[in-house]
């Protein structure tokens, strides 16, 4: 079990064991930043809470006066004005309650939404390496469940906690005033309560954390088997996936129960200790009364007040659990907030305008290694792409082509060497403007459940009809006009009813719409049939004329697009030249790009 948890945590988060950190409360405290915009509202809210307590407390004495006065005297004419006052107070109490609750939820929801928006914004900035490691389900459970817990704490638990602390203090003061010896017994009972509370914090926090983490695992499992449904169905592995899900869900159940067992230890003791203290006070009080050291009236009042203590003490167990869960939630949320985006603007980075870019892209001794693997995938790449030139990158599967093309738009940063655009290190350019100038299209088209238009205009929201038409034509994606609602048709997350070739053409069109100075394409035509490929190439060739382009190719037919080809071999550029030259001079190149040898062998 332990080993499993260990493996999990490395799979889902980068941080060390989070439960040992005493930062839980600090992280919850950090949320105050998000409360600040609502401070006026919160001020009103607290005032209303106070008023509500007062209005609630004001009624019983009046009722008492009504009974002792007019009713006892049998004077109806004096009764109804008093009842009218009670009625008005009651109406006010109800109204204040309504307004407070209305404000409370509205404000809490607003704060939750703000936090969610901030978290989303932060996640957008985190580099792909982070997203590769974190399962979407884990992120999702932070954005939904955890934020919900924090919201509920601020909307309910906190109000509750403060009210009960207030009540406990007031009552204790009253008790001391009435009879200090008895009050000491009541206060002494706070010692075991405190000890139990401390143990509760120590044990419950990690248990709550474990449950929340596992809930993220369950979401991840659910999400993955929905995304991979075709692969699962194609192999008939539904039952296997279900049994794996079962393991996660069962673990969640176990952790949920474990958490409750811990909670039960203290909650039950809370109520029991409080009522045992009451018993002790009663017995000792009775002795005091019998000895004439205390009046019966005082003892009754004392016990009545202590009875009123029972409820807030019992409730504090619930409040503590709530608070604990909110702390864990805040911890999990800040785990994300505290991850610094690895790819950021350097200080003093400058913006770059599309019109100022010549488009000379130079790789200087570029090296790259994954953070968990010391071996370099790129071991010193030197390559110059001249303005307006199209260079194809060829190489075996796993030679690092896809890594190489992720560098110019800084989806990854090289671990050594540098890349320059018109002589400036791209890390000295503002990220947003760099990606405006350099556009990358991947082999696997990521389409979103949105209209075709929205998908096409992904990189240029302001693109007009003409731009879209042009791009659709270049990518030979005219099929979009035949969809039921044309460009307004919603296509699914996985390009649903679209074939691989259609999706790829959409992705290509999307890149073309941007009209960047530097276009990077990762094998953009692999899923197209020969005929379509030829048409696309012809149209694309025109687009590429004024554009610097880097294209990963797998097939000789795509090479035709390029002015020069670079062969990536063992992390370096082994050869650069025209296709025909390389076919003659480089055996490695022939091996990678020529189908001829196979033809001959066949």
């Amino acid at each position, binding site marked *: 079990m332990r080993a499993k948890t260990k493996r999990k945590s490395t799979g889902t988060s980068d941080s060390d064991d989070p439960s040992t950190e005493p930062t839980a409360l600090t992280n919850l405290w950090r949320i105050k930043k998000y409360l600040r915009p609502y401070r006026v509202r919160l001020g009103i809210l607290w005032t209303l809470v106070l008023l509500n307590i007062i209005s609630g407390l004001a009624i019983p004495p009046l009722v008492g006066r009504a009974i002792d006065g007019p009713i006892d005297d049998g004077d109806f004419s004096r009764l109804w004005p008093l009842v009218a006052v009670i009625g008005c107070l009651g109406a006010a109490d109800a109204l204040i309650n309504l307004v407070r609750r209305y404000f409370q939820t509205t404000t809490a929801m607003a704060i939750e939404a703000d936090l969610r928006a901030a978290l989303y914004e932060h996640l957008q900035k985190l580099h792909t390496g982070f997203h590769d490691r974190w399962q979407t389900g884990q992120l999702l459970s932070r954005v939904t469940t955890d934020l919900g817990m924090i919201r509920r704490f601020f909307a309910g638990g906190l109000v509750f906690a403060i009210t009960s602390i207030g009540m406990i203090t007031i009552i204790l003061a009253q008790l001391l005033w009435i009879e200090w010896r008895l009050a000491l017994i009541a206060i002494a009972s706070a010692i075991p309560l405190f000890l139990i509370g401390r143990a509760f914090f120590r044990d419950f926090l990690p248990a709550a954390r474990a449950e929340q983490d596992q809930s993220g695992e369950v979401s991840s499992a659910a999400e993955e088997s929905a995304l991979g449904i075709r692969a699962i169905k194609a192999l008939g592995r539904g039952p296997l996936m279900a049994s794996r899900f079962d393991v996660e869900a069962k673990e969640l159940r176990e952790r949920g129960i474990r958490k409750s067992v811990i909670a039960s230890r203290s909650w039950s003791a809370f109520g029991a200790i409080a*009522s045992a203290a009451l018993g002790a006070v009663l017995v000792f009080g009775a002795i005091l009364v019998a000895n004439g050291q205390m009046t019966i009236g005082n003892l009754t009042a004392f016990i009545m007040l202590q009875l009123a203590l029972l409820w807030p003490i019992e409730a504090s167990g619930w409040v503590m659990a709530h608070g604990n869960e909110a702390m864990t939630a805040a911890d999990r949320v800040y785990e994300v907030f505290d991850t610094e985006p690895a790819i950021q603007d350097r200080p003093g980075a400058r913006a770059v305008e599309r019109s100022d870019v010549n488009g000379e892209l130079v790789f200087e001794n570029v090296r790259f290694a994954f953070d968990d693997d010391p071996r370099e995938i790129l071991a010193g790449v030197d390559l110059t792409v001249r303005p307006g030139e199209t260079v194809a990158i060829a190489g075996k599967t796993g030679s690092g082509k896809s890594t190489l093309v992720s560098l110019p738009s800084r989806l990854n940063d090289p671990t050594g060497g540098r890349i320059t655009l018109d002589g400036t290190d791209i890390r000295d350019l503002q990220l947003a403007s760099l990606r405006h100038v350099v556009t990358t299209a991947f082999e696997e088209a990521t389409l979103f459940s949105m209209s075709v238009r929205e998908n096409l205009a992904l990189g240029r929201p302001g693109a007009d009809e003409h731009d879209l038409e042009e791009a659709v034509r270049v990518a030979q994606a005219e099929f979009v006009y035949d969809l039921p609602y044309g460009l307004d048709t919603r296509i699914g997350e996985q390009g649903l009813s679209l074939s691989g070739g259609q999706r790829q053409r959409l992705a290509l069109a999307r890149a073309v719409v941007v009209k960047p100075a530097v276009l990077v394409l990762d094998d953009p035509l692999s899923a197209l049939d020969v005929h379509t490929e030829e048409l696309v190439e012809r149209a694309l060739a025109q687009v590429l004329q004024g554009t610097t382009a880097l294209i990963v190719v797998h097939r000789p037919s795509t090479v035709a697009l390029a002015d020069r080809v670079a062969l990536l071999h063992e992390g370096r550029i082994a050869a650069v030249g025209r296709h025909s030259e390389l076919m003659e001079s480089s055996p490695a190149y022939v091996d990678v790009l020529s189908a001829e040898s196979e033809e001959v062998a066949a």
Partner: protein
Amino acid sequence: MVVQNDKHASWRGRSESAEADRTSAELEDEESIRQLRTASRKLLGSMMRPHKRSIWFLVGILTVQVLGSMSTPILVMFGIDHGIPAIADHGDYSVMIGVGIAFAAASIIEYVCVRLYIVQSSKVGNTMLYELRKRIFWKFQRLSVAFHERFTSGRVTARQSADMESIRELTENGVDDLVMAAMNVVTITVVMLVIDPLLAAVTLLTFPLMLMLGRWFSKVSAIAYRKARETVAVLIVYFVESMGGVRAVQAYRREDRDRELFSGLNTDNRFAQAKGHQQNAFMSGGMRGIGHLATVVLLLFGGWQVMQGNTEVGVLAAFLLYMKRFFDPLNELVQFYNVLQSATSALEKLSGVLDEEIDVPEPEAPQKIASPRGEIRFDGVGFHYREDQQVLPNLNLRIPGGQTVALVGATGAGKTTIAKLVSRFYDPREGSVSLDGVDLRDLSEADLRANVVMITQENFLFNGTIAENIELGMPGVSRERIVEAAKVVGAHEFIEALPDGYDTHVRKRGGRLSAGQRQLVVFARAFLADPRVLILDEATSSLDIPSERLVQRALRTILADRTAIIIAHRLSTVEIADRVLVLSQGVIEEDGTPDSLIESGGEYATLHRQWADSLV
């Protein structure tokens, strides 16, 4: 620049059917809502039934606990009324000691009850949730690909995360409060009726008001919470997709637009969620108001009664105290009503999922294929995804066992549809598809999948190591067999070069590997599955030429004694086929061996020539 209209409808686009987002049980009309509510109640019943005994046990514990807590005031009263006089008058401590012991006993009972209740209820609640999770997961697994395409993975996730969370909250908090409050209401009502029926009757006049308020709230809030469950689902769909595709978002600098859309959904959700809570505020204020109204009525009427000498002051005082004890827990409960309504809406959503009809159902009496040869037949098969677009008009095709058939044709010719029909992702609208003479609809899922495996173009890798991903082809197989499979398809070399070899974690969706590498892993997985019929849908498109060469060499051996259907744009893959079918608009235009088709000079010959030209 054209300023775009930012209404959601415009960016989300129009869907083929308005109900795309819902299960068919969730239509908007009154009738469906009523049915949905019945269904969700049934679901709740079916969740609780296996735990009937534990639930009764819990109710028992709670009853003991309530009785125990009610004993406290009585003990105090007894101690003051009898214990103190005994000490003061006779120096007799025995009564007080008895009270002390009773107090200790009550505390112990309370301790045991609370502890038992928390642990037991958590066990029952978590087990019920676990069983529901399993049911929902399995249901989603059995629903057809068509359903998933419509419903989207984000929504599937939302049902299994946010909706489940709503229900969990219900089981975790407040059920005990609900039961206690209910017991409280009943006991107090009975006590009041016993003490003074007339006064009780007048007090109970406020009941109808409470009921009306409750009715109003549950009606309007059901709508609000239903809406909120949907807005949160849309939010989750957006979140899951944009985080899954974050690479594209970053590469296209879509962050701003993305944030704008997300924040729109976030705000929608915020207001939808707040709506129900705001209605709850009315309910809460209303309940308090009714409580005060009851006090006022009681004071006036009861006061008049006392003055008339019809009742005692003490009775009135007791009534007023009981009123407070009556309404206080109810006020607490109103808060819990939020959780309850939210969970009810979630249950409705989930029962909609469970009731969704499976459009590719398991046969009731599955037939067996004794020794599969792998013969595939299409008899008069008609198929369309949308009414107005026939994909396959009337397909008749026989693929004898062991034959390798390549499907060639333009996009939209129906190649992938044929593949999907053979692997029963869909059922034909007309005619039948059969394996060795048995209609696919009569084969059990397990039998079908053991015999027919499709490699799709999406190369999906699961979270886990490379070995685990390959092993999916035949779960439980030894490491040697996994390595062997990888060797056959030519994946061994690159896998060995990874930091942890076969135990390298592929990261989310295989982000650690290139598209070509993922394809090889998927190939190894399918090879390990060792089916009679193998379908390759564009399974080699991402491979570079050396890998493709390896795969092709492997395919010759792998496919030698198997039936295979290959869809490929690259004719190099097609060349290993025994037979080529050229499709156009769902109709077979040419049918023959590759060589014979080249000689006949038709469509295939043209394609082949273009392809050969592209090689240089």
